[in-house]
Structure formats: structure tokens, C-alpha cells
């Protein structure tokens, strides 16, 4: 039942799709209510799993804008995720700035760093672009390891404080799983809304045009180069926000944050749910975390099963698992 919680954030994305049905209103309200009371009937462990899913949702949204809507396969999400995590952790540890400052700074800094990286990278095509973005991750890790005066290298930055909010005389610290769950839920909902607004805007349609046929898009006057660059920066900023949440939730940042593992995680989430849809990515992040956690029952076989899952995903469900469920439900509807 827990994951229905996520439905709340889907509501806007789905509104136009299912506009004809009347049940949507009450249903949405029920789901919002369910999301809000989820901690009442869920233990810390399922909540933790949802938190991880929601943290990964941010970079996955970013990658979806890039891959699903603009057609650029990037493996750089882990690099930007790491930059965001380090930005947040460094600010918190060295300057003691509050969470919302760190969080915003992580996204902004990451987005700005993406500009000089994106300019040369986006000139490349296909495989070269993929490898170049993978290079960002490898080089990012080398910098995190070797710039010891700033990052403390492999010793990592431990003790990143829990988010603390102060409004006038009232102040409270988000500690514990439940508090963090609500914090991440709100942020993920806002992020989903932002993505929704982007893709439903004229800009979003231009992005899809670039994905479908770049040359044609260029010829009808879409400034494809600027679009790609801006989308690259936005997707990096999303990864940066996710990295900030990661740093404050796990309280530790180390060069291990820069790993291709995270890049492929984002890719699996986007493709597993269905690239080019918002609800698909949300579904994908829950599916991914649900799967990796479910596989914990057999630690030795876990990664093997995961490998088979990837093969199954690619060969049987090239559009992700979400359409399958769509088909299943319409099948049920027909039978009625």
C-alpha cells in the first residue's frame, strides 16, 4: 500500500490524460491522505526504502528530461549527484549553514558547473557523448579523492547535520525517519511539479521535437543547441538537489558518491519505468528500490538476479514496465 503515496505527485501529470473520468478527484484526495498518514502504518524500514526511492527520483527526473524528452543518453548524473552532495556537505560542515541554504546551493552550484562541462560534451554525438559523460564521473571521483584540503579525500565528510529549520522563535530539527520522509515527500512532489510544468510548456514540446528529429527541429527554428545545453544544466541541477538530500540523510559523503553505479541506477529507473513519462519515472524509482530491497533476502544471488532483471527489462519490456501495467488495467476494464 505504501507506494500509493507517490501517486500524489503524479496527480498533475496525469490530469490531462485522464481528464474524462470523474472518480479522479476523490481518488486523488484519498491518495494524498494516504501519503500523509503512511508513517502511521509503515515501519522505519519501508519508509527508509521510500526515502531512498524519492532521493533517487530527483536525478532520475533530470535524466528523464535529458534522455526521455530530449533524447540524450548521459551517464553524468552520478557526477552531478556527487557535486551536489559535496556542495551541501561542505557548506554544512565548514560554515554551518542551514539545510535550505545547502539544498538550494547544491542545485544551483551543480547547474552552473554543468555549463562549462556541457558546452564541449554536447558537441559530441552518440557514443562519444556517452563516454564523455562517463568521464565526468571518473574525473569527479579523482578530484574528490585527491583534493584533500577541500574534500578530506577518502576520509570523507562525516557528521553532516540533520536538516534544521528555524522560523522566528520556533525551530525544529528533522530527525528520524518519519520527519525525513515528509521532508523528502514535499521536495519530490515539488520537483515532479516542476518537471511537469517544463514538459507541458512549449519548451517541452520543442525538446520532444529535438528527440524525434534534431535536424528537422533545427530547420523549423528551434535553437537546438541552446535547448540541449539548458536541459543538460537543469538535469544536473536536479541531480544536485538529490545529492544534497543524500548527504543530509546519510550524514556521510565520500568519493564513493561518484560512481558509475549511481549513473546506471538512474538509467535503470528511467528506462525501467518508461522514458519520456513522468509517472513512469516515479514508478521506476519505486520499482528499482523495491526490487533491490526485495532481493536482500538472498545476498549471494542478489546481483545475479539483478543482472537477469536488467536483461529481461531490455528484451521484453523495452518501453519499461509501466506500459505493461497500463495494458493490464485496460484489460481488466474491458472485461468488466
Amino acid at each position: 500500500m505504501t507506494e500509493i503515496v507517490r501517486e500524489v505527485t503524479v496527480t498533475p501529470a496525469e490530469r490531462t490524460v485522464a481528464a474524462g473520468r470523474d472518480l479522479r478527484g476523490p481518488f486523488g484526495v484519498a491518495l494524498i491522505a494516504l501519503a500523509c498518514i503512511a508513517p502511521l502504518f509503515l515501519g522505519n524500514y519501508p519508509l527508509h526504502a521510500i526515502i531512498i526511492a524519492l532521493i533517487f527520483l530527483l536525478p532520475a527526473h533530470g535524466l528523464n528530461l535529458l534522455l526521455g524528452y530530449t533524447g540524450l543518453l548521459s551517464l553524468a548524473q552520478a557526477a552531478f549527484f556527487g557535486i551536489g552532495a559535496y556542495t551541501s556537505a561542505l557548506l554544512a560542515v565548514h560554515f554551518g549553514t542551514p539545510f535550505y541554504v545547502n539544498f538550494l546551493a547544491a542545485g544551483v552550484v551543480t547547474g552552473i558547473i554543468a555549463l562549462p562541462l556541457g558546452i564541449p560534451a554536447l558537441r559530441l554525438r552518440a557514443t562519444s557523448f556517452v563516454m564523455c559523460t562517463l568521464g565526468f564521473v571518473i574525473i569527479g571521483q579523482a578530484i574528490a579523492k585527491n583534493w584533500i584540503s577541500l574534500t578530506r579525500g577518502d576520509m570523507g565528510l562525516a557528521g553532516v547535520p540533520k536538516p534544521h529549520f528555524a522560523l522566528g522563535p520556533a525551530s525544529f530539527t528533522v530527525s528520524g525517519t518519519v520527519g525525513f520522509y515528509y521532508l523528502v515527500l514535499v521536495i519530490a512532489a515539488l520537483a515532479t511539479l516542476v518537471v511537469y510544468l517544463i514538459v507541458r510548456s512549449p519548451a517541452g514540446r520543442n525538446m520532444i521535437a529535438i528527440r524525434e528529429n534534431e535536424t528537422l527541429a533545427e530547420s523549423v527554428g528551434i535553437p537546438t543547441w541552446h535547448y540541449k545545453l539548458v536541459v543538460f544544466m537543469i538535469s544536473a541541477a536536479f541531480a544536485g538537489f538529490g545529492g544534497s538530500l543524500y548527504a543530509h540523510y546519510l550524514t556521510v559523503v565520500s568519493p564513493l558518491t561518484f560512481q558509475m553505479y549511481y549513473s546506471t541506477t538512474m538509467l535503470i529507473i528511467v528506462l525501467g519505468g518508461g522514458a519520456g513519462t513522468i509517472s513512469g519515472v516515479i514508478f521506476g524509482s519505486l520499482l528499482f528500490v523495491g526490487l533491490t530491497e526485495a532481493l536482500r533476502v538472498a545476498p549471494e544471488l542478489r546481483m545475479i538476479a539483478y543482472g537477469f532483471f536488467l536483461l529481461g527489462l531490455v528484451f521484453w519490456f523495452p518501453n519499461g514496465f509501466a506500459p505493461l501495467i497500463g495494458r493490464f488495467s485496460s484489460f481488466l476494464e474491458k472485461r468488466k
Partner: protein
Amino acid sequence: MTIELSRRGFCIGTALIGLQTVSSSAFAARSEDGTVRLGLVAPMSGPNARYGSFSMRGAQMAAKEINSVGGVGGRKINILPGDSQGTPVEGVSATRRLIDQDHVDFIIGDVSSSVTLAMQPVAEDAGVLLLNAASSNPKITYKAGVGGFKWTYRNYPTDENRALIVLQYAAEKKGFTKYAVLSVDTDYGRAAIEFTKKYLPRFKSQILTEDYYKEGEVDFRSVLSKIRDSGAQAIIMYGNADSTPIVGRQMMEVGIAGKIPLIGNAEFNTASTIKAAPKALEGAIEAAAWLPAYESEKSKAFVEKFTAEYREAPNNHAYVHWETVHLLARAIEEAQSIDREKVRSALSNIHYTSAVGEVTFDDHNQARLPMILLEIENGKPAIKGAYSAEIDYPK
């Protein structure tokens, strides 16, 4: 290309996952089943799985030994594994699962320091005893005990300890003053060198070249030729066991074997490593938490039993996990209960005789452990004594 989901389809999908989560938590075993539920977090898949498999085997062997004589206080030890893959996020997930799903009372883990650092606050919030057996980053216990985390204990010597002991022996007994550094590029290798540097002035020594290799690096020829030409008297190496034979072989190739010894810690003393490059490892000096050749009855018996059981010689990770399970069992016995509070205070006051000596914990929950110093002589490790050093905690 664009795929839209129907609202209902989406619900069904999410509900399916939700059901899985809820049902598994509803049927999770409770802790009141008369066993000691002990979680073990270690990298069990992926590139670092080699550390996890030794840890798991060591711990399981200890549990088997304890259970075969009726358990501890009548309770059998039940080890529940959690895979960290050597990354903090997976480690935290595994810890959460062990605490909330498997209802463990105690956790041993992880090998990698950055994973342990991330697990600390989780265990602290849940009030579950986290007994670390193999991470050497000093920060873990800087922050434990009177430093903050009440529930973290560590039964393993820190990098700081080790660095000081090695340097002292090299300077005082061998008269070395010029060193080359060749350590693994992880928190372990980096931290050991950081603490070595802290004590360099005390022995009027200096580091001439400094290099770090990535885990799995196979080509050391370039850096070894550089070290050969640098005038260093010894190579300080803190690394993992798998690189040592490669370094040894390549030292022979570039012609520094037998001229510039290795000092530090990277399992110089295992038989297969010495066999791979006997000339290069001759004269190597190592400070180890434990080694298979250690002369004590308990240690010998462990090696024999482990080798018979798993058909391979135990390494350091296997030993420390084996010993730590026994240590925990003793604490439970002394507490006469599996109540976490009681076990914790039993642990703080414990006087446990391990295979290498007596174990007690200081006010930072750090075990006071002797380090064994050995030198490879005539192709065999010769033990030069057990040293221990009291740690200066930063104020």
C-alpha cells in the same frame, strides 16, 4: 514513443509493490524466539565481495562453535547477513532492514570505514549495538562513547595506532629516515599515511615520493622505478592483500627486491604472498591486528579449524569477525540477558582474553588492542612483539 499510463494501471502497480513490503514486514520474525539475533553487514556482492566472504565465514564459524555447546545463556546465535556492497547507501539500507525487518539486537559491520561511518547514526537512533570489527578509520571512535555515539563499539585497532608503531620500529630498530609511500587509494591507505606524516618529525624522517594505487591496480613498474631512483630506504605500504604479490613480483623485475623493504600493512605475511615474491618480501615489516602465523594456542586452533572447514586459510577479516562474535557472546553471558543496555555496559567493562591478548574498551568505546609487529625473515614471518599505544583523542 511517449507512453501514458492510465491512472488505475499505475495504482495497481504501486499497490503490488506496497503489498510486498507490508506483507513481508507483517510476517517478519520477532526477536522473542529465544535466539540472539545478530546482524552482519559486509560487502557480499560486487567487486569487494572478497572481504565480505571472509567476514561472513569467520562470524558463522564462531556462531557454530557457540551453538554447538548450547549457545550463550541457552540462546543460539542466529546470524543475519546484510549486503553493503561496500557503499554507504547500501550499507545503511542493509542496516535499516536488519533493525526494522529482522529485529536484530546487535550488528557487526562493516569492513569499509565510510560505510561504518554512515551506519553509526542509524544504529544510534535505533539503540542497537553496533560492534565494528574491521574498520580502521580513527574517526569512528573519535565520535563514539564520550565522543557522541553511545552504541558504537570497535574491536579493531585504528590506522593511527598502526602508523605510529610501524614508523617507530622502522626508525629505532632499522634506522630508516627516508621513505617512499605506495598505499592503496582508499580511506584506509590514505588515513594511514596521514597519521604517518603526523609522527614523521618525531623520528626526523621524511617522505620522498608519495603514490596511491587504485584497488585492483596491476601495473606498478613505473612507480617502482621511480622509487628505485629516489633514494628511499623503505616503501611504506598500507594496502589490501591482493596487490601485495603483484608489487612484490614487480619489485623483483625493476631490481629493488631485497634492497628496499616494504613496511606497513598489506598482508606481507601470508604464505602465498611470500611464495609469489620471496626476495621482495624478505625484510618486510608489518603491524597486523592478527596473522595466521601468530603463536598462541587459541589462534592456532582457529587457523586449523577454519582451514579444515572452508578449505582455505583465514585472513585478517575472518579472524576479527570470528573473535568479535565470541567477544559479543561473552558480553551477553556477563550481562546474563540480551537486553541491549545491559550488554552494552557489560561490553564497556569487559576483560576478554582474545587470541592476541586482553581486550578492554576505553571511554571512546575503542578496544585497547595490541598490534603484532613482525618481520619476514628467511621467508617466514618472525614476530617481533606486540605493541599497543594509547590514542590521543582530539579535544
